[in-house]
């Protein structure tokens, strides 16, 4: 089992008030699943994503990533897990503005301690895989939105993580470009990766093979939707 979440709670203290962002979540995700987490704003989907991405830790309950209890890890151990196991794709791309595409993609490898030549080669390969081999020396502000998101996808994949975690990856893109990006995720998933998508758009969620709906810090429904190809099968 890749991800095992057991009665997970996340409580924020805002002044005197306690906000229950997650209120008892149980979730299991296997290797090579394609999951969309849906829900209105305030439903707790972002909090869940932060915890799955090891950016945040649970207040109560357990989160086991490949059997490791993430709640018990130090800041630096969390950083190492993020580096090794998680590839982030953000709505706002979150590329380093002053660095070119190649350097942006290299970043996870820098923190993984990969040597310079190998780093460079792997970053080039990753950019090639997303069709940006001619944009390696461009800075983010010299790239279109779709190109930026492809750089971000290359960056997410470059260190071969266990989970690709995408937070509203098409939120800042027009629908044609969004389709493009979603096609990339489909391909990545088919190559054997685990993809977790956080979105509030049903169209986007429909691309996934499993949709987890959240409301008020709880899982409302968890539906496996066979792909169009599978649906055609009897």
């Amino acid at each position, binding site marked *: 089992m890749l991800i095992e979440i057991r009665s997970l709670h996340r409580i924020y203290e805002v002044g005197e008030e306690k906000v229950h962002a997650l209120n008892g979540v149980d979730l299991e995700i296997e290797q090579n699943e394609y999951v969309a987490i849906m829900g209105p704003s305030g439903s707790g989907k972002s909090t869940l994503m*932060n915890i799955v*991405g090891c*950016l*945040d830790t649970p207040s109560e309950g357990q989160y086991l990533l490949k059997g490791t209890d993430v709640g018990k890890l130090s*800041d*630096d151990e969390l*950083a*190492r897990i*993020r*580096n*090794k196991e998680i590839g*982030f794709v*953000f709505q706002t791309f*979150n*590329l*380093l*503005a*002053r660095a070119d595409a190649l350097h942006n993609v290299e*970043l*996870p490898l*820098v*923190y*993984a301690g990969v040597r310079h030549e190998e780093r460079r080669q792997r970053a080039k390969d990753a950019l090639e895989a997303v069709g940006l081999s001619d944009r390696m020396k461009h800075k983010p502000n010299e790239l279109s939105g779709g190109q930026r998101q492809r750089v971000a996808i290359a*960056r997410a994949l470059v*260190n071969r993580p266990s989970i690709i975690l995408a937070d509203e990856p098409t939120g800042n893109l027009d629908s044609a470009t969004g389709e493009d990006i979603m096609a990339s995720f489909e391909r990545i998933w088919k190559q054997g990766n685990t993809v977790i998508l956080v979105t509030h758009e049903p169209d986007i969620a429909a691309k996934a093979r499993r949709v987890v709906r959240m409301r008020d810090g709880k899982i409302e429904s968890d539906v496996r939707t066979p792909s169009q190809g599978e649906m055609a099968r009897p």
Partner: protein
Amino acid sequence: MNLRESAGMALAALRANKLRSFLTLLGTIIGVMSVIAVLSFVEGLNRFVSEKLLASGSNVFYVDKYGFITSQEEFEAVRDRPDVTIDDADAIRDGTPHAQIVIAQGNTQVVARFRNKEQKGVQLRGRSAGFELVDDYQIGAGRTYTDLDDQRRRMVCVIGPELADDLFGNLDPVGRFIRLGSETYEVIGVTVAKGKLLGQSQDRFAAIPMRTFVKTHLERGSVDISVKSIDQASMPLAQQEVRNVLRARRHLRPGQQDNFGITTSENVMQLYNTLTGGIYVVTIGVAAISLLVGGIVIMNIMLVSVTERTREIGIRKAMGATRKAILSQFLVESTTLSVMGGLIGILGGIALALLAAAVSPLPAAVSIPSIIAGILMSGVIGIFFGSYPAWRASKLDPIEALRYE
């Protein structure tokens, strides 16, 4: 995070905001610059002084009425001592086996004339025969005067080459007569040029026998005596012998203090070292203040930078940067920044020292240790004042940082 990358990014940021970077670094630049410039001067002076003072005159000491005095109080205490006379010099010459040469001397300024040419402010030196050995001159033309010239109070002089040029032009001065003050002297020799010492010519003088000088210019008053010992090792012995001779001549009882002064180059060196020690303390103070200010400015700019780049820090943390990685990135940046300031300061300091050396008589020598000290100081400033901003950056919560607009 590797060092080269952090340093490269810091330099890129420096280039991106040239004016801001320059203003940020001004304190460090001024601090390091003043240290380098002042230390260069002191180093130059040190070399100069020890060359001139110690090397040539290391076995010469001086006997006079007052000794080496540095304050009004000391002068009050010694002003009533008996004069040192030319007979004292003769007695010392006879009673000091470890003295190679003993010269009685006195100085004044006169007007020198030859035909219709006139030179004002010429240094007239009364010297016993053999002065060139103590004053370190070589005779270029003619001859020097002898003890016999001195005993007979002959009106002869040896002149410096600059005075010779000014008065005689292309004529050969030897054998001609010049007026020095109100008397006429025969020029019997010209010395070899020695050049300038602290901006003052050493070749614009006339030396006459000491007894002639006493007759014409020093009817009353005290003479000075230079004693050159046989070698460096016999300096203390020679001094003791001089002391014995003078104490006997002045009938001083055991226990009574000397009523004359003996000054060595070492005394002068000591005073000199006290002076330059003071310069060091002042420099360190000035540098410390400007480096403190420089450091605070760097801390401020790094805090601004951490805030501006909150999102970048969030991204790096999401990609797996540990706290140590973020900490060292910002430390390398602040250190790169301040070392850049240090380097500019070093160049500025060297330029300042060379400029001053070019337009003034002060010598300057840039010392390697002061350059190393400048780099080290600026590096320490960068690390020290960069650590708080870097610590703040490393403590940022990745979720908050990623959300920062």
